[in-house]
């Protein structure tokens, strides 16, 4: 059992929980995730770590409340206990001195983007960050990401803040202006990552995406999270979650992530009705 130290809402739909897990906090690296099971009857779901502090002995998770499990987490308050927490899992972000790194995040992906960009910058890279959301109110980790940015761009679909349009518009403009880009890192909705990959591919810009396939154990045992990379089957949990965007079969990932939608709706309905 793991104690919730602090619980917040970043937006009406996005929760942030700081949980006591000293050993995981000590070992966690940017880009990794943890498996969270809220209760004994709960589902094991992978959540990205938005932060981790070896000093405080805590990890911070952020999640969009879409289904039952995330809503259940959203109702947890300081002092509540999470049934199971396993990690840190997956390979950490590969860090090296690339040069100019353009990182692009959308929606809940911004939570993961923060520690990754922070690590990239600590590693001596120049960090150019583009963040986006549907509207201003849904932007999360904006200040944090800005604090580790050499250049910083905000986009909203409705124009309520920053550029009125998509994150990909800014990237396209940078490429059109022949800006030197050594690496693109993208995390967010599948469609966003796919679009980014399609933009950079013709220009041969190395592009890394962080994928979010459905997992069960998260340790390489089941293959629920298998993704197709250059025609080869890889496991999101142990070979990823980061992959070369130009090699990912996004179609397959999109189809696979829809596998349990009817069941997810049954669970959610039951939960919302208080059963």
């Amino acid at each position, binding site marked *: 059992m793991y104690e919730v130290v602090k619980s917040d809402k970043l937006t009406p739909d996005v929760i942030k929980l700081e949980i006591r897990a000293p050993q995981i906090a000590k070992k966690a690296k940017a880009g990794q995730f943890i498996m969270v099971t809220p209760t004994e*009857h709960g589902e094991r779901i992978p959540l990205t770590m938005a932060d981790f502090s070896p000093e405080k002995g805590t990890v911070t998770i952020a999640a969009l409340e879409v289904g039952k499990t995330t809503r259940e987490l959203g109702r947890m308050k300081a002092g509540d206990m999470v049934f199971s927490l396993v990690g840190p899992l997956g390979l950490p972000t590969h860090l090296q001195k690339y040069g100019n790194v353009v990182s692009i995040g959308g929606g809940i992906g911004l939570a993961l983007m923060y520690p990754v960009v922070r690590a990239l910058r600590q590693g001596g890279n120049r960090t150019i960050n583009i963040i986006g959301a549907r509207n201003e109110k849904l932007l999360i980790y904006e200040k944090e990401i800005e604090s580790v940015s050499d250049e910083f761009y905000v986009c909203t679909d409705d124009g309520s803040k920053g550029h009125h349009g998509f994150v990909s518009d800014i990237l396209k403009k940078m490429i059109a202006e022949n800006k030197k880009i050594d690496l693109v890192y993208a995390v967010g909705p599948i469609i966003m990552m796919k679009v980014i990959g399609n933009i950079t591919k013709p220009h041969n810009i190395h592009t890394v995406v962080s994928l979010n396939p459905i997992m069960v154990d998260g340790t390489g045992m089941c293959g629920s999270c298998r993704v197709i990379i250059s025609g080869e089957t890889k496991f999101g949990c142990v070979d990823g979650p980061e992959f070369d965007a130009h090699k990912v079969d996004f179609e397959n990932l999109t189809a696979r992530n829809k596998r349990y939608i009817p069941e997810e709706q*049954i669970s959610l309905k039951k939960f919302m009705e208080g059963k």
Partner: protein
Amino acid sequence: MPEEEKKAPRKIVPKKYPMPEQDPKVRIHNFNEVPIGQDGQTAILEAQRCLQCKRSPNRKVCMDGCPVEIDIPRFIKQVQEGNFSEAIRIIREKQNLPAVCGRVCPYENQCEGYCVVGKKNEPVGIGRLERFLADWERKEEKHGKIAVPPPTGKRVAVVGGGPAGLTVAGDLAKLGHKVTVFEALQYCGGVLIYGIPEFRLPKEIVRAEVDYISRMGVEIHNDCVIGKLATVDELLKEYDAVFVGTGAGLPDWTNLKGENLNGIMSANEYLTRVNLMKAYKFPEFDTPVRVGERVVTIGGGNVAMDCARTSLRLGCKESVILYRRSDAELPARREEVHHAQQEGVRFELLAAPLEFIGDENGNVRQVKAIRMQLGEPDASGRRRPIKIPGSEFLIDAQTVLIAIGQSPNPLVPMTTPDLKTTKEGTIAVDPEGRTSKKGVFAGGDIASGAATVILAMGDGKRAVYAMHKYLMQDPSWPAPEVFEKLSCEM
């Protein structure tokens, strides 16, 4: 009873006393255990079929077939006399998971395979006696802490809480060592928890066995993925020795076209959803699992039988096993095949998949397969299946389960640079379970490749002898060349 009377010739009851089972028509609608278990009176009668044979170099008896060396005649003698408490004590001298092994051991090839009674009649039902005693103990005996010898002061880390790890933990505790088990999942038990279905091995029983081991003073830490949370090298700083029993958790794939379609799962995913996460109780439990009208399971081992039988219970209309050899080569235990047949699983034998065909939404719709015939024996001694040209056929399936084997879990070898592995990815060990890294031992599927629960336990037991010796008397270690050779040979 005087000695003479016992030795007097007597008529042996030719068959085992029957094991009551749930009716197949009823049980395919529930996850309750199939064999219901015997009562004390039946156990005594069954025990009385035992001849109490003496073991000798030229005469193999039951004990010769037991990987964990239970003193079988001695415990059966106690059952004959109705001393159940003493009988289970004798089993527990050697065996840490009697309620598990009394259910899932392939006794027909082990103890019962060597039973002298079995030469002309059915062997003594040793497996069901073990099960009876373990169940009796769980119900009748209420014990708190279990006495262990005074502490030796040595600390051991066991990585992986499956059959091998639990055996090592229990046996080392019995020798006075302080043991900590690190288990990756939220419950200890390994394949006993995530793999073997409730109807073959109720999880309550696994929990009780794990509880017994923790009452011997073994500390169990769930949710700990060694290789991620801590490395073996880090464990060696805190512990005097490490045992690695991380199993064969990596599912094998067919690598055929269409395998990543929705509705196609590894046996591991399917069984983990159902058993560990209790998807059969969805939505009371949150993890879902879905089966279509027809489920095709590819493979013929015990895991394949578990998949096919689980599918019936989850409500599919037809559950089909697709296996490339014939009935005689099915690697599953006969009892499992028999249970599957009774329940109505259809066996499509001498057939292998070629391709998986999907619909426009990415869901599997059909399996394209081909008929096979058996040719000359291959390296495994079994006749090699050969495709019959032109015999392709299609079989509709909304769910396909891949149960063709598992490979060793790579996490510990990957994160322990000086741990030698074999070509198959298993950790190279000497005959007593030592690895190339001083102080580190390994056993079970991670060292032998995918095998059975009891063989993993036997491995664990062997490692315990070597570990105890290493901890208490002789800290010497084999030369690196030994492992160089082992890693090439296997």
